[in-house]
């Protein structure tokens, strides 16, 4: 929750072909309830579309959801596309059906945090808040 500072802006997107958006939509609403301004880009988006939108909307953080097992390819792609467009500073968080053994690899490839299914929403929201605050602090120092 933001007090005197303006609300955090977050983009929630589903890269790839997976159409299960129940979790993404819940997190979007939960973030809104915590004072975030949430841009939800819907399903079936390419990494390029997600990154371009995040940059254009000047978000503080990006959240990705994938339940189809394609996260190893799709999540790092979003990170790369953000880099390509000058947005390497924007933290990217991801969640969905992700086996534990993939987490390390994803973090190595630039993801800020990964949530496996069953993670309480409060934990997820906290991560978004922390990442957003870190992003703002980093910005202020520039």
């Amino acid at each position, binding site marked *: 929750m933001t007090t005197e500072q*303006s609300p955090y802006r977050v983009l929630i997107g589903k890269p790839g072909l997976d159409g299960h958006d129940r979790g993404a939509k819940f997190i979007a609403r939960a973030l809104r*309830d915590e004072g975030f301004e949430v*841009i939800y880009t819907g399903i079936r988006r390419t990494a390029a*579309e997600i990154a371009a939108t995040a940059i254009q909307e000047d978000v503080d953080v990006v959240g990705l959801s994938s339940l189809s097992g394609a996260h190893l390819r799709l999540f790092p792609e979003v990170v790369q596309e953000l880099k390509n467009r000058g947005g390497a500073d924007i933290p990217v968080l991801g969640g969905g059906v992700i086996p534990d053994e993939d987490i390390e690899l994803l973090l190595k490839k630039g993801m800020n945090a990964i949530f496996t299914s069953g993670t309480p929403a409060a934990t997820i929201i906290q991560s978004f808040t922390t990442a957003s605050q870190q992003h703002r602090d980093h910005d202020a120092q520039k």
Partner: protein
Amino acid sequence: MTPKSDTLLAGLKNQDPRAIGRAISAVENNSHEAVALLSALDRDRIHHVLVLGITGPPGAGKSTLTSSLIRTLRHQKKRVGIIAVDPSSPISGGAILGDRIRMMDHALDPDVVVRSMATRGRLGGLCASAGATVRIMAASGCEVVLIETVGVGQSEMDIVRLADITLMVLAPGFGDDIQAMKAGLLEVADFLVVNKSDTQGAEALCMDMEQIFSAKEEKSGIKRVLQTVATENSGVEELLDSVHSFSLYITDNGIKEKRRDQALNAETLDWVIEMLRPQLIQALEKTPGKNDPRLRAEQLIKTLKLQ
């Protein structure tokens, strides 16, 4: 909180998406860079920009129509800016900015500049940040700026003040809502767009609307009630042609000038309130609270030492 205004300005001129996004955030948040940035913007650019307000009840297909308009404008090689407004939750202060989802087709088009904007429960309404955003988009080369807003109410009226031309989008099946809105319709809308015009009830709705707009139509000689099927992109070119004709019409007879002046006044007033807000809240805390609110207000104003 944001990079220096010079860097942002240079970025705007280069049409850099990141710079545009950050510049808009600066004015939304009323940060330090905002003043320097706004005063340095190329003020001539705004004269050539057409600001189009799009409003109407949810479910009429506003967002789809907006996307269609963007597509057609892009065919006409125009660089387009869009401000998509959604309400903030009065409880949490957050918002779901849901109009963007209908515009994702244009996500990779560098000549479509979209900003999703929350109403943020500003004391002063939308005019301050939206008006400034229009100028930022203009400075980055946008030739048309669409402002899309939800539902009926306060934000609706704000848009009217900012826009050169306002479209109200309706669809068949909104019978009762329309009756209730009749009084306000004439005031608010320059054009009435009947979307989903391929569905039952469209003809009847058009006839109803044509009656309401007949005086305006006669005066300007331009048809004001138009039909579209946004999902099929039909009627959209004709809509833009009419808008263009109307734009020439209001430029010629000085109405556009008047509207621009009104917009600037509205925005200025909003900025005043926005900038005074911290001071006002502080003053409120210092003014004793048990009196009649109007009395208390008088006391508060005295402490501000205006005049």
